[in-house]
């Protein structure tokens, strides 16, 4: 198994990275660090895909010309172009998702002054209690 892992070392690195990303996501309390963990996971997936596309001894999939100026379209010249396209799509997806998550984090910080989602919950319940107390007080005053 170990020799096979060495053979597939890019994929192995990718899955270890994705595990690190997942650990980050589960263990970190800080939202921004969580989002960094998510990005590590995504990037690991791109590394995995890029490794899947590579073929030994071939060129990048941009057409080359031979000596006579003819385009070379032999299959054994270029690597697999599909993963490149998938990675491109994935990167754009990851950018927009990260932006949305960060903007929500920013709003959370503006509301509660914390980047920890559990602390925000505590702050929220306290806020609610105060709010309820105030409204009850107001009701009593009306009753009087």
């Amino acid at each position, binding site marked *: 198994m170990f020799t096979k892992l060495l053979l597939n070392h890019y994929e192995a690195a990718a899955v270890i990275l*994705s595990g690190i*990303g*997942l650990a980050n*996501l589960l263990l970190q309390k800080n*939202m921004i660090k*969580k989002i960094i963990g*998510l990005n590590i*996971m*995504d990037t*690991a*997936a791109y590394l*995995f*895909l890029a490794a*899947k596309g590579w073929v030994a001894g071939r060129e990048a999939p941009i057409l080359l010309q031979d000596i006579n100026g003819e385009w070379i379209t032999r299959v054994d010249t270029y690597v697999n172009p*599909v*993963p490149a396209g*998938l990675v491109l*799509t*994935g990167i754009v*997806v990851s950018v*927009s*998702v990260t932006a*949305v*998550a960060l903007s*929500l*984090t920013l*709003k*959370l910080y503006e*509301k*509660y002054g914390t980047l920890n*989602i559990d602390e*925000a*919950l505590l*702050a*929220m319940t306290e*806020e609610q209690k105060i709010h309820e107390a105030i409204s009850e007080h107001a009701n009593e005053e009306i009753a009087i």
Partner: protein
Amino acid sequence: MNLDFIAYNTPFISIFLMMAAAIITPIIPQEKRLPEKFSCLCIFINIILSGYLVYFLATAPENIGFNYPVGHFPAPWGNELRAGLLEAVLALIFCVAMFLSVTGNFYDTVNEISARRRQILSVLINLLTAALLALTYTNDIFTAYVFIEINTIAACAIVAVKETGGTIRAALRYMVMSLVGSGIILLSICLLYGLTGHLLMQYMRLKISELVKTGMYDLPLLVSVAFMTSGLAVKSALYPFCFWLPDAHGNSINVSSAILSGLVLKGHIFLIIKVFFRVFGLDVISALRMDIVIFILGCAAIIMGSVHALKQSNIKRLIAWSSVAQVGYIFLGLGLNSEIGIAAACLHIVVHSLIKPMLFTSAGGLSNMAGHNKNLHDLAGTFYLNKSAGTAFIVGACSMIGIPAFAGFASKFALTAASFESNLMIFAVAALGASSLLNALYYIPAVLVIFARGKNNNLEKIKLPLSFHVSIWIFIALNFLIGLAFIPLLNLITKGVSVFG
């Protein structure tokens, strides 16, 4: 005049129409709520198109459906959509539910959010519809991934569309959970691409059945199916991964809750069905023992969702937890791993996408009478102030409990019938029975509360616009239609499932 080309192009046109609508909605002027009306119009056109497609496929001599190449290149090279009877029925139901949720809560969004945000909300609703339709029709796993992401972002955005601390927190939590799911799905797609070299479902399936025959790559296949299932299960709130759902669905405004609970979850669930059926094949799934796992999680979701719902005092959170239980029903049907079980699961998707928006819309109408209070004890006596909403709530509750003649009975009946053919019958029937009891335990008090003439006699009646009442009564009519005449619908779905694979 031959209208076949309309039916043939419907899968693409309906997705494309919604995306184009989303793209031009930001530049529509905000006066007279034009963006929202435009979005309603587009969804309505989609209802007509999907309805025609259902009619076309149901009356076609051999209703095996068709593949639709998107672009000039045939299947293994270009993207492809697939429209069969099952997809068409689900697309029709999704469009109807979306339309009614938007029109039913049309009055409510004005009170809750500013004009600017309403415009963006209608963009997001268009995008969600497009993503749902794309997830329903797609035949390409990477297209599915892209539209899952659109679905995720738009769903988080419509949670946060009203800016309060609770919604921001719920949206963030939802976002993080969904993104974990997306990451896992992407890894699984990478694995599958590495093993099969295809992204289109039918070619992947050919390759996978070859691999299974040779016995190669058993572990990677198992890992990829496990990752795909768990990723999509996180997004569709299967039990152990469902704790984001009540926050997200309970805190947001009514239209968001209705759409999220009724529709967004279903897109992901239908994708799981699609992956099981069209990418792996049911025999591979049962060889990898995924069906048992799904079945157990489904049973757990049914029981635990109801148990959690019992503890709730906020009506929206109660309905949200009941969604967890209902998702469990669908997974239970899926876990039976037979065509009839999956047909029952699809029937439950249809039923639940019509009941849940109705419940949320009516709960919104009721709480509107009680001064936007959502606590159950504040809703006492609201039935007398808003009779349509009250009736709809009762009908929805009876449906959820599974009383005959209501829609919920149809799917429970189908699920029970399906479980008789499986060796897991005892567990399935026990879970269904227990959950019906639990559903009754938490829905009946809620129904009794809205009838109670108590301390809330000083509430004033607020007149709600016609759009609300009309939508609510259409919901109720559809509910009875399905509840009383579900056999033809079930036949349609069963036919669709039989040509699905």
